[in-house]
Structure formats: structure tokens, C-alpha cells
């Protein structure tokens, strides 16, 4: 089972992870973080589709994404 973890406080909402995800698992949230950005979030029910390609991790300028295997 692949787990995607997006640090909501580090994220600055640049959307680069959203556009590179081949499975459309990541979207932008409605809420704001403490710095005033809409952070990226995963769609919980789609997380099972994750193939751990790491593209979101590679493109994240904030090193806010971790991908683990459970």
C-alpha cells in the first residue's frame, strides 16, 4: 500500500505536483495554510491508484511530499 504524505505547512500551492501526477491523485485544497497558501492534497479514495513513480516528489520545490510503502 503506497502512502502519499503532503506537508500542508511547507506547501506553497505551486501546483507542479498536480500537473505531473499520472493518476490525478493530487488536487489543490480549499483551505489555507498558516502562510496563506492553498496547499496540495491527495484525494484519499484515489491514493490506492498511486504507482509510486515519484514525479510529484521530484517536482516539488518545497520538498513537501513523501511517498512511503506500508
Amino acid at each position: 500500500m503506497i502512502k502519499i504524505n503532503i506537508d500542508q505547512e511547507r506547501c506553497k500551492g505551486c501546483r507542479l505536483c498536480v500537473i505531473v501526477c499520472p493518476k490525478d491523485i493530487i488536487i489543490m485544497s480549499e483551505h489555507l495554510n498558516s502562510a496563506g497558501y492553498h496547499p496540495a492534497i491527495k484525494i484519499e479514495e484515489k491514493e490506492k491508484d498511486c504507482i509510486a513513480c515519484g514525479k510529484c516528489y521530484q517536482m516539488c520545490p518545497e520538498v513537501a511530499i513523501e511517498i512511503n510503502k506500508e
Partner: protein
Amino acid sequence: MKKLFSYPDSLKKARFSYCPGCGHGIVHRLLAEVIDEFKIREKTIGIAPVGCAVFAYHYWNFDVTEAAHGRPPAVATGIKRVLPDRIVFTYQGDGDLASIGAAEILHAANRGENITVIFINNAIYGMTGGQMAPTTLIGQKTWTSPGGRKAELSGYPMKISEALGQLDGVHYIERVAVNNPENVLKAKKAIKKAFKNQIANKGFSLVEVLSMCPVGWAVTSVEALRWIEEKLIPVYPLGVIRDKSKST
């Protein structure tokens, strides 16, 4: 639980001060991963430039100093010559390296200093508010080229990596980009090679990274990826510019 992609040890947990979509964070991570993978964190000394990455010492989890504008290669020379068994790298932007520090980089390269240089080319001065850099494209609008860069006034986009590639002291120069996941992986490979060269005492290695500055280019973070593909790469083609280990 197995970590597949996780935060590298050579980065502190501090949040970056960079704008959303800026490429510096990606390159910082690549550097940190490479340093982790070679297990050289405890013998590495990094030199931050003047520019947006001036605060790199807040992010890198190893010894770091900050040089005057353009002078990192001279500072690196002083450190490396005294401590040849340490790993010394400079991290410089296009203003720092190609403009005010053109003499220092040229001569450090020509001396074949056994250092690694990470050269961030985003065709603009970010920290001071978006002025024209030596690498700014013809026609590119900046704060100091409001009508777009004109060759007759400001010369041409400077291909300093190609110029440095002519020098016999240089071991390795490659130009990479961080505008898509495939290119990021290639960038990491190049950075890894540049550090490996230093560890093996091969001499001067430089990796030029075409990197996003969406705020400076007045585009969105996503558009900035395309801007690199469509505008920057045609002027600054990716690939190996010099590699002595292959020329024999």
C-alpha cells in the same frame, strides 16, 4: 514502512524562503540527496552566493559560508587548497557567476580547481526584483529591460558554460533543467557526477541548471515549466558540454 521518496538528511527542516514554483528548492534537494548518497555530509563545505540562494545556510545541514557577490569560486579555492580532502562546492546564480563573478569562475575553472559548481540559470536577477541578467533572452522583458533585451544595447544571452568548456582546466560541464520529472532525474545524475569527480580528484566540474523563476518571468508556476522548454532550452541546449573522462 518503507520510505520510497523522503526528506534528505542533508537538508534542515526549515521552510524555504523561495517564491512558489521556484526551482531552487528542487536543486537544493538534489544536492542534499547526492551528499547523503555519497555519505559526505560531515566533510562538505558549501558556499552560498549573493542572490535568492543567499539563505542556503538556513537549509543545508552541513558547514556553509556566504561569499561576496560573484566570489564563491575564489572562496572555494581558498578552502579547498588548504583542506584538499574536504568536499567544497559553490552554488551560484547567473548574476553571481556570469556577471560580477565572471573573472573568478573563469580562473577557478582554468586552474582546474577540484571543486563542484552548481550554476543556476534562470535568466534573471530574482532577489533584487527581476533585473536583466547576462543570460536574459533577447526580447525578454525585465525590470531593467522594460522593452525587452536588445542585443545592440546589452549584447547576447551569455553561454558561459560553453565558454568555460573551452578551458583545458575543466573536467566536466553539463547543462540540465528541472522543468519536468525526467529532466530532474537527469539533473541529479549530472550533480552526482560532478561530486563524484571531486571525490576522485578529477578537477573542476560545473552543472548548469535551467531553473524556474515564475515571479521574475511574470508567468504561473506551471507556465514556467513550459517557458523553460520553449524559450530557454532552444538558446541553452541541454547536454554534456565537456567531459574529459570521455575525450580520451
